[in-house]
Each structure stands twice: as structure tokens, then as C-alpha cells.
């Protein structure tokens, strides 16, 4: 049943130009950074004489793409997540889902999975681009995998927050703006608290937990953080929809 809702969401995303345009723009930006990375690798490395200055091609090119990805996704996710539930509210199509034999959890998870699998296309394309380096170099698969997983978890967290915000309003644009501001705040917390790295609030920052992945390190604490983040916001969404049923 979750799969059926996800399929419905994907159909909705692919039947509007919006989905295709965003997917194309994402790919354009990531490909540009990838190309710049490949281009500059030789320039930089030919200047680096000492062995400790030298860097693997995976890390150099991957760093360029994966470094920019969180910020690009910051713009892309709100645009896609905004319509998820608010549009159904506005078009009054929620009764269609509510009167089908589905639990609220299935509805929310289905929508979340649908959106996430759409964005995963973009993440997979990044993976494919970096992987193509393997044609003429030996790439570091561990590094690539850690980065892809990190980006995937980060995007999933964005989606979860976006889903929740979308369930609180009838206006997709309002949902987009609130999602964007909230995500931006979660990115910036770390900069504001840069002077005090041990601060508890700084631990809420999404970027702080993404950073180990981008170094190629898998830390269960970071994975747990992302999973908790996702579960929290999806649970809030279910509660928000349940309130509709209870309060009317």
C-alpha cells in the first residue's frame, strides 16, 4: 500500500513540468561541478609536488560535487515537497485517501517514499557521474559510498521536514518558504555557534552530521541522528493529519 501511494506521488511529479525541470536543473548544476572538478584536478595536481599535497581523484572531484549538493538540495526539496499535502488540502482530495483502506502512517510514508525516490534519482545520477571516473582511474568506492549514503540521508531529512510543513498549511508557497527557512536555519546553526563547538544546540545542525560522511566516515551517531530526524517529522505529520480527523 505504501508503494501504491508512492507510485501515485511519482506519477504526479512526473506528469507536471515542474518535476522534470527541477530534475534537469539539478543534474545540470551537479554535472557542471563535476566537470569543473575533473578539469581542475590536473591543474591542481600538476602544481602539487610533495606527496602529502596530493589527493585522490575521487576525493577531489567527489568533494566538489558533494560539497555543493546539500546547498542545491536546500532549494530543490522545498519546491518539490511543498505540494505534497497542502495541494491535496487545497484541492480537497484528502478524503479520497482518507476513505481508502489505508492507515495515516501508510499515507504519510507513501508520500515521503514517493518524494524521496524522486530525489534519489538525482543522487544516483551523481553516483553514476563519479563512478564513471573508474573508466580511467581507480576510484575509492568506500568514499563514494559514504558520501552517497550521507547525501541520501540528508535529502531524506529535508523531505521529512518538508512533508511536515506541507501538512500544516493549505498554501504550497507558504509551505515552500517555511521549509526553506527552517532548513536554512538548521544549516546555519553551526556557523552561529562556531565559537562554542561543544554547545548542545550546535548538535542539531544537519551539516555537522553530514560532514563526517563527506570525509568518508560512517558514524552510527550521525546515522541515528538522521533517522531520528526523519522519524520525528513523519510522526508529527501523522499526528497533524490525525488532528484533521479528530477536530474536523
Amino acid at each position, binding site marked *: 500500500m505504501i508503494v501504491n501511494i508512492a507510485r501515485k506521488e511519482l506519477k504526479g511529479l512526473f506528469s507536471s513540468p515542474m518535476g522534470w525541470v527541477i530534475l534537469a536543473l539539478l543534474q545540470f548544476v551537479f554535472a557542471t561541478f563535476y566537470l569543473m572538478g575533473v578539469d581542475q584536478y590536473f591543474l591542481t595536481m600538476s602544481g602539487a609536488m610533495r606527496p602529502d599535497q596530493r589527493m585522490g581523484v575521487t576525493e577531489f572531484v567527489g568533494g566538489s560535487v558533494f560539497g555543493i549538493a546539500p546547498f542545491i538540495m536546500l532549494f530543490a526539496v522545498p519546491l518539490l515537497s511543498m505540494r505534497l499535502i497542502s495541494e491535496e488540502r487545497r484541492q480537497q482530495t484528502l478524503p479520497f485517501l482518507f476513505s*481508502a483502506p489505508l492507515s495515516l502512517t501508510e499515507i504519510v510514508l507513501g508520500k515521503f517514499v514517493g518524494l524521496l525516490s524522486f530525489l534519489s534519482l538525482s543522487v544516483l545520477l551523481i553516483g553514476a557521474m563519479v563512478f564513471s571516473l573508474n573508466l580511467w582511474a581507480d576510484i575509492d568506492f568506500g568514499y563514494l559510498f559514504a558520501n552517497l549514503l550521507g547525501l541520501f540521508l540528508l535529502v531524506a531529512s529535508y523531505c521529512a521536514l518538508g512533508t511536515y510543513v506541507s501538512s500544516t498549511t493549505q498554501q504550497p508557497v507558504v509551505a515552500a518558504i517555511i521549509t526553506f527557512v527552517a532548513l536554512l536555519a538548521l544549516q546555519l546553526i553551526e556557523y552561529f555557534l562556531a565559537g562554542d563547538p561543544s554547545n548542545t544546540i550546535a548538535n542539531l545542525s544537519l551539516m555537522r552530521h553530514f560532514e563526517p560522511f563527506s570525509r568518508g566516515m560512517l558514524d552510527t551517531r550521525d546515522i541515528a541522528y538522521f533517522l531520528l530526524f526523519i522519524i520525528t517529522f513523519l510522526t508529527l505529520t501523522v499526528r497533524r493529519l490525525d488532528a484533521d480527523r479528530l477536530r474536523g
Partner: protein
Amino acid sequence: MTTITVEASELTRKYGSRAAVNDVSFTLNKGEVLGFLGPNGAGKSTTMKMLTGNLAPSNGSVKICGIDMMERPKDAKALIGYLPEQPPLYRELTVDEFLTIAARLHRVSRQHIRKAVDIAKQRCGLTEMGKRLIENLSKGYQQRVGIAQAIIHNPMVVILDEPTVGLDPIQIRDIRALIKELGGEHSVILSTHILPEVEMVCDRVQIIHKGSLVFNGGIDVLKQQRHGNRLLLGLRQPPPHEALLGIPGVESVEALEGNLLRIRHTPGEAPSEALVQAAVSQNWGLFQINPDQTSLEEVFVQLTFQEAAAA
């Protein structure tokens, strides 16, 4: 196999201190068509939302074929097809795509989806529209898609909230025929404020007013109340009322404008024959005689008004 398909008991829904629906109880048997009548804001839609699990009742319970809506919502909802007031349509999809999704979400098995979509389209007269975007369809056709989505999984109970709104007369006739057809094997609940519609398609009628049921019974009862015990008599040279009152069966006479007389008679014994004979033999100049039907509207107003007076 139980024959009771819908059982609502003591349904109450409060918004703050105001009760939108107050203590509504009824049962519906298999194969019955139940009409829900009421003025605007009477609580028809609210009741329907509660029946379909879209709204939690403040009090009371709903059972669909013996399955409690609160305790096993998924199983109960699988037995219901619901068309809300505003048909829930994904406008960016085509009719076929939308109905396929509806079938899938309502647990129609994979190999039967195509067939279910075709049957639903055929029943609602949408066969030609399969490839059209819902967005581009007229209001009437959108309404049909809404009905198709409600019956696609062959549910035990079909709940339609004002299904004939926005349709042209021919479409309305088709939809009424469809509702009658559905009533054969399923139970149907429909709400409307078009009274003749209820008389045409429903077996039973419930009138709801200010959140409470004021009438619950067979359509015959309502019809009887409608036909009543009155005759309308048109005479060019009306005799004094005493002459009319002398005819057996006549209880009272009331003069109306245009030489018309309203005659109230003892129920079941219409003195039409005696009146005609008297009129001919005494040369009253009879030009019209017919049963004086209270319009359904009048019955409706009476019922809702009585309740207001009693409260």
C-alpha cells in the same frame, strides 16, 4: 452473512459547544437506497464524513457490515465507496490513470484492475473519456469520474454526497438509474436537497434538521403524507358550502381563489364520484377535480418546522 450493512448508533459530533450532528442512529439493510434530506447546514455532510471515517465522532459508533469503524478502520473502509461533496480528483491525471490509482488503493487485485476501470467507466458513461485529462472535463463529467471512483471496487456500501449537483437533466436521469441499479446489490446512501430525486430513487428517507433526525421511514410513508386527504374542486357556479358538506365523506370545505374549493375528506374514502354526480345533476359547472397533493417541499417544511416548534 448479515443483511445490515450500515449501523450508526448515537452519532454525535460537536464543534466547540455547538452540536453539528446530535444523537443520530439508524441502520441500513443490504439492497436499500437511503436518502438523506435536509436544509443547508443541517449536518448531512458531517454525518457522511463520520460514516466514512473522515471525521471522528465525538460520541457514538459506526459499524459497516458489523465491522467497527473506530476499531478496524481499514477493513471497514474497504467496504465503502465515498463521493464527498467536492469530488476528490487529481486534475493533472487522465481519467484512466486516476481510476487505476483508485482501484489500486482500494485493494482491487492486480489482474482485475483493468477490468474494474472499464466497468466503472461504462457504468458512469465515461468510456470515451479515458484518455482525457480530468482538468479538461466539464463539471458534469468530473462528477461522473467522482462516482466512478466511488464504485470501482464494488463496495458493499456506496455513500454519495449530492451526486447530481452540476449535471444536466439527461445526466441526472442516467445517474439516478445508476443509483437504482447499485441499490440492487449494494446499499446506497445519498444526500440531496432535491426532493423529487429522493422520491424517485430512494427506498427510505431520513430528514435531518439542525443535526437531529426528524423523520426516518419508508418513502411510502412520506408519499402518503404527501397525497393526504384533500381534493381540489373547480366549480363555475359554486353552491353554498352546506350543500357540499352534505355529501358523505366531506369533512370541511375551504374556498380558494379562481372558483376553486379545497375539500378535506375522511382518509381513504375520496368522495370524488359523489361530488361529480352532484355537480352534474345540480349544474355547478364542474371544470376541474383532482387530488390536492401537498408538495414534498411542504411535507419537508412541515417536518422541520414541527421539530422546531417541539424544541
